[in-house]
């Protein structure tokens, strides 16, 4: 499975997703989504809460089948789960009954890697995410940030070609988020994968990504803006926020986002 350079890693073409609600009603989460992510490109998706950012990610992962439109992965139409993608969830997704090492090693089992080799690689990955001394800990013994590190190692050990991340650092405190952001950029810089990174934090989006995609407020959310982030790499997610260029981009994007945030807020108030 070689990624051909001319094909986009992820391509959403006219995607719409509608959920069936109880009582025969329907809820259209997103519509008319055209989005491509090139190999090696880090794309952040921002939007007000409830705008269907995660829905979009689930469509790219194959966890959701779009009601209309198509999903292509490296030029091939996606059917079933996206085997070429790794997914980092917002909520805790580790198996609580497995140690950090087993949680990471088990990710290689579907690839038929021998257990001893899987454990060896798991230790290596846990060391890379800074959890060398926590390999035998169970998830409940770890802090939220440490659990995210384990989840990161679990995703990366499979060497997926596409990384899908759903507000992965959302539940963490501000300091930990920046540390995790830097860790993610460090790991990503090694062999740039295509990334779809969903967040509600615009600053985080700019600090991490090459491109920021802005979504409108739901229901029937769609893409209303697409901004290039020309900041030099490697970046430090904390220091980059002081860069004048960062402020200029932030101002641009915020202008298009602000109206949508207010709309989402009004919709939420109205019920």
């Amino acid at each position: 499975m070689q990624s051909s350079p001319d094909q986009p890693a992820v391509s959403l073409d006219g995607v719409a997703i509608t959920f069936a609600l109880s009582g025969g009603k329907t809820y259209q989460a997103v519509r008319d989504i055209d989005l491509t992510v090139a190999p090696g490109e880090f794309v952040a998706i921002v939007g007000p809460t409830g705008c269907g950012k995660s829905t979009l990610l689930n469509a790219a992962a194959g966890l959701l089948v779009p009601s209309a439109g198509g999903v292509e992965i490296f030029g091939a139409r996606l059917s079933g789960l996206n085997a070429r993608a790794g997914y980092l969830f917002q909520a805790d997704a580790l198996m609580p009954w497995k140690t950090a090492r087993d949680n990471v090693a088990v990710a290689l089992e579907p690839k038929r890697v021998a257990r001893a080799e899987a454990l060896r690689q798991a230790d290596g990955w846990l060391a890379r995410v800074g959890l060398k001394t926590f390999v035998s800990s169970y998830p409940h013994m770890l802090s939220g940030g440490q659990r995210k590190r384990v989840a990161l190692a679990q995703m990366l050990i499979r060497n997926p070609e596409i990384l899908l991340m759903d507000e992965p650092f959302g539940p963490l405190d501000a300091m930990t988020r920046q540390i995790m952001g830097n860790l993610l950029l460090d790991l990503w810089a090694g062999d740039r994968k295509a990334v779809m990174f969903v967040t509600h934090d615009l600053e985080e989006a700019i600090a991490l990504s090459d491109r920021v995609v802005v979504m409108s407020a739901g229901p029937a959310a769609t893409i209303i803006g697409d901004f290039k982030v020309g900041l030099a790499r490697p970046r430090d997610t904390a220091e980059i926020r002081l860069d004048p260029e960062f402020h200029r981009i932030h101002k641009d994007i915020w202008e298009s986002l602000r109206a949508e945030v207010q709309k989402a807020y009004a919709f939420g108030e109205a019920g």
Partner: protein
Amino acid sequence: MTRPKLIAAQVGVAVVVLLVWHVLTNYPIFGDVKNAQFFFSTPAKVIERVIREIFTTEIWHHLWITLQETILAFIFGAAGGILVGFLFARREMLAAVFDPYIKASNALPRVVLAPIFALWFGLGIWSKVALGFTLVFFIVFFAVYQGVREVSPTVLANARMLGMNERQLLRHVYWPAALTWTFSSLHTSVGFALVGAVVGEYLGSSAGLGYKIQEAESVFDVTGVFAGMAILMVFVLALDAVVTAIENRLLVWRPTPGKAL
């Protein structure tokens, strides 16, 4: 409360209860002492009887029979409960079809089954195992059924995104989840296995603690009944301690509330 203090307080409760019992059955507070002793015996007599009993081989034979019945009832009940619970949780259709029957049979008081089991399986240990089975099965079944269905959707989606097939999901996600719930119901189900055994013995058998108690009861030997109950209580405590030890070993990954690491 420190541990020695806790134990002192726990022993204190027993001492107070025994003291009240002793006073009420040895001094004519509510009428004749003879009358009181006929209905309630006295702690001294009961303790004396218990000590005498444990130095005979007979009581150990009865205990052994009851223990066997309890363990067998637990093993069969838990195995059946896990199997069916798993199956129903993964096959919604089956669960929907059998739902009223499961509910109906769970609502049935098991005691009414005892004579039928005695008829089917004889007066030996198997009729008691069957009775215990009907109690344990439902506890474990409901726990596993719920446990498997309520596996965190995120953990499940994550495992699927890691590329796991159905067999791997079963092994790494569903099975450990089911096991957790089985163990969370372990104390209850072992207790019920014992209830099944003792009630079965009580209603018709020639050995076991339940038989022993029933035998004493039939000759109005209140001291014997209380002695049997006392032995049963110690037996339950010992069994519970074993269960706790097993549980702590198998569920090391579980957070212990209120205990800093």
